């Protein structure tokens, strides 16, 4: 892969890399014949960031081996070539962000040298087994600086499931307006701090509220609420109202910072409380896609229109009283990305390339286990069948660490729960402390009422493996199940 950037497009490129670096440590590079993409996922897999640069963004762009002089150009007839690689974002950033780069670089050439085609670098040292990203800065006065960064081969691609629902809400707002809204919420700057805000989108107003999580208790945190008119938004299209979503700000702030530096507006898409937030930031030849997992805001009454998705909402209050571990801590409800085997992804790309907006990021349909796609009603039944065998498996559906943000996880550790490594551990812990037994079995059996995958990290689904006892009760409404489930354990 070779690409060249001139000084003016190098700056936006660097900004994108800084944004990616705030999302995750590992940067995945994918070079397709007609576009170049960079993506990163945070360690909790609850936020995903991808930049796509069209071919035209670069002054020169070509995927494949460098063309030799006199070589007939037959590359176009070959199968679709694609280069994938992974490297540490901070290494690339430290190269690109150095202050001398901005001052003196006139042109920047990026190329990926694969380990095998060693003859391309024959005059270099013999160490050509590793693939390398070569960044060549052509500076003033003819100074040439060449950085070679070692690349690793990604074994899995992370890709978010993209919802395709008609009832998606879509709002558009500029970064400055967002920043003005957010600056009213005090952020402590520490590495641990990862504040959450609850956003509720109404027909006329948008209100933002600090989300008190268990971590902040006892700190005397100020609870702030801000309401602004929907007119502040450049576009405001809410399907059902109100929509309440809560998400962490760390990655969101990175997105705002990028949009701000590029003076681009943010196009936010969301469906309901439990589906992730999608943000598009589009510029010339550039597409930024940001996906941030939403979490379940504590104590927020769920509107009736959505309560069918949330059969366990009625027990929120009780949990809070009963569980010192504070299970109802707002959780990142789901991993928003899934591992996709490389081969599968390749196939998927070639097949569904033009199918939808971001087709390659769809997990292959053959993936076992819950899919994060929201399925159209027609396929719901089918999905429920797939779901049932799942609960017989004894293996953990998730690890606790996957549902907590990194910061919260750390706190758990410090609180002495650091040894929670497996589902068994967690269950053992929960058992002793009056867990929320109100798991309604109906959720398993009643597909429309459960968002299978979204609920993956819900306590309800945690209990899947144990809850087969309740299968008989499946016809009970959620309330009944709750009552029945709770009493025996309260006696402890």
């Amino acid at each position: 892969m070779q690409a060249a950037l001139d000084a003016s497009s190098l700056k936006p490129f660097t900004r994108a890399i800084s944004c990616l670096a705030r999302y995750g440590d590992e940067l995945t590079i994918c070079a397709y014949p007609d576009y170049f993409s960079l993506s990163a996922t945070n360690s909790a897999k609850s936020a995903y960031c991808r930049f796509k640069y069209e071919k035209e963004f670069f002054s020169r762009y070509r995927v494949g081996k460098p063309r030799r002089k006199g070589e007939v150009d037959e590359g176009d007839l070959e199968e679709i070539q694609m280069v994938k690689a992974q490297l540490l974002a901070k290494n690339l950033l430290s190269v690109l962000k150095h202050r001398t780069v901005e001052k003196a670089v006139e042109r920047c050439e990026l190329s990926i040298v694969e380990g095998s085609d060693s003859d391309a670098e024959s005059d270099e040292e013999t160490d050509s087994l590793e693939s390398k990203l070569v960044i060549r800065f052509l500076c003033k006065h003819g100074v040439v600086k060449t950085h070679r960064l070692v690349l690793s081969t990604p074994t899995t691609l992370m890709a978010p499931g993209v919802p395709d629902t008609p009832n998606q809400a879509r709002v558009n707002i500029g970064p400055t307006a967002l920043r003005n809204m957010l600056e009213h919420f005090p952020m402590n700057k520490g590495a641990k701090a990862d504040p959450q805000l609850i956003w509720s989108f109404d027909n006329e107003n948008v209100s933002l509220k600090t989300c008190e999580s268990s971590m902040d208790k006892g700190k005397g945190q100020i609870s702030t609420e801000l309401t602004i008119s929907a007119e502040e938004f450049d576009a405001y299209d809410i399907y059902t109202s109100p929509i309440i979503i809560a998400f962490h700000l760390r990655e969101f702030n990175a997105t705002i910072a990028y949009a701000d530096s590029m003076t681009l507006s943010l196009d936010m898409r969301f469906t309901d409380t439990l589906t992730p937030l999608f943000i598009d930031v589009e510029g010339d030849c550039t597409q930024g896609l940001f996906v941030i997992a939403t979490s379940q805001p504590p104590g927020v009454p769920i509107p009736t229109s959505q309560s069918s998705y949330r059969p366990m909402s009625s027990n929120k209050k009780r949990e809070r009283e009963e569980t010192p571990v504070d299970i109802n801590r707002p959780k990142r409800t789901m991993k928003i990305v899934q591992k996709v085997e490389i081969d599968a992804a390749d196939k998927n790309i070639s097949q569904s390339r033009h199918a939808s907006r971001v087709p390659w990021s769809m997990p292959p349909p053959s993936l076992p286990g819950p899919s994060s796609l929201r399925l159209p009603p027609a396929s719901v039944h089918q999905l429920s069948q797939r779901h049932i065998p799942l609960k017989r498996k004894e293996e953990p559906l998730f690890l606790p660490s996957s549902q907590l943000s990194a910061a919260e996880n750390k706190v758990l550790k410090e609180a002495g729960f650091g040894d929670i490594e497996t589902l068994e551990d967690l269950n053992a812990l929960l058992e002793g402390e009056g867990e929320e037994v109100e798991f309604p079995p109906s959720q398993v059996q009643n597909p429309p009422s459960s968002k299978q995958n979204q609920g993956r990290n819900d306590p309800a689904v945690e209990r899947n493996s144990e809850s087969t006892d309740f299968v008989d009760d499946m016809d009970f409404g959620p309330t009944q199940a709750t009552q029945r489930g709770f009493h025996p354990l309260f006696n402890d």
Partner: protein
Amino acid sequence: MPTEQPPVLTASVHDLRYVAAILRGVNFHNRATVTVTKQGLTVKVEEARTITAAAWIFADIFDEFIYNPETPTDDDFMRTTQDQEIESSSFEMPLNTVLDCLNIFGTAASSTGTGVGKKGWKKQNQDSDRESGDEEAGGNRVEPLNPNASEKHTGMRLTYMSPGYPLTLLIAEDVVGPTTTCEISTYEPEPYLDFGFDPEKVVLRIILKSSWFRDALSELDPSYDKLTFISNPPEMSDNPMTGKSRRRNPTKPILRIKAGGNFGSTEMDYPNDRDVLESFECMQSVSFSYRFSHIAKSLRAVQSSTKTSLRIDNDGLLSLQFMMPPPKGKENNAESSAFIDFQCLALDDEII
């Protein structure tokens, strides 16, 4: 009787920042040997028997510089040097402590705000403190409390009585401000490691603006372990005056600085252009490697200097000389410019 003797050295300066900046340039090892002659002071530092640095501070940088050679006695410990042509006295001092003392009012940090390029240097110095995070936590990171403090000058008077006596520093923040007296223990000097750099054996001689060298060093990732200077004699077709050179064979760069480590490598090629290399003499193809952590120790010195002279002899011994800007008020007197000399042994290629 020593008490009746005048002190071996008395020196005073009205603005200590210049001296502090020079001392900071060699502050990578705590124990420094100071040699006093009539011409001035040399402060020498050595580490790992591989790298040495010497700062030359000439007498006319000081407002007052009085050197009284020690009276020869029979006592061996007095380390008199009467048999040498130039009389000198030397002692060892903890350099870090001295720098901490100079910065006791937090006013030594703004360093060489004296000569060229005053603007922006302060920031760069701060950067370097973070980048080249030495194992010695230098106290010179203290920022001035008052940004205008640099308008006032912190003066210093340095007194060294004779061997066995402490080094006395009298530091006054202002004429009317507070004063401090520091007494710092001195030690008997250890024999100084001399690599014996022989200008006759030089195979590569380059003079370039320090900013080029500084950018090159600071752009290299701190995790790199090896740095190589590669240089080739210029081809006849190259015309250094116009800077236009034939497209060179990439295997024969004029000057290439190359560094590498676990995460990758970096190469920087410099053309034989008068804007870049002020002078370039290369007798034969040169490629010598050094430990990057050693070369990086010169970063602080290169940051406060104006010009860098890079020489390598045929054994790979590297000599880097950094010319410091002349102190304020003495710009016309180039003689008084201090300089810092680094020497570093090359890695043995066969061992690597």
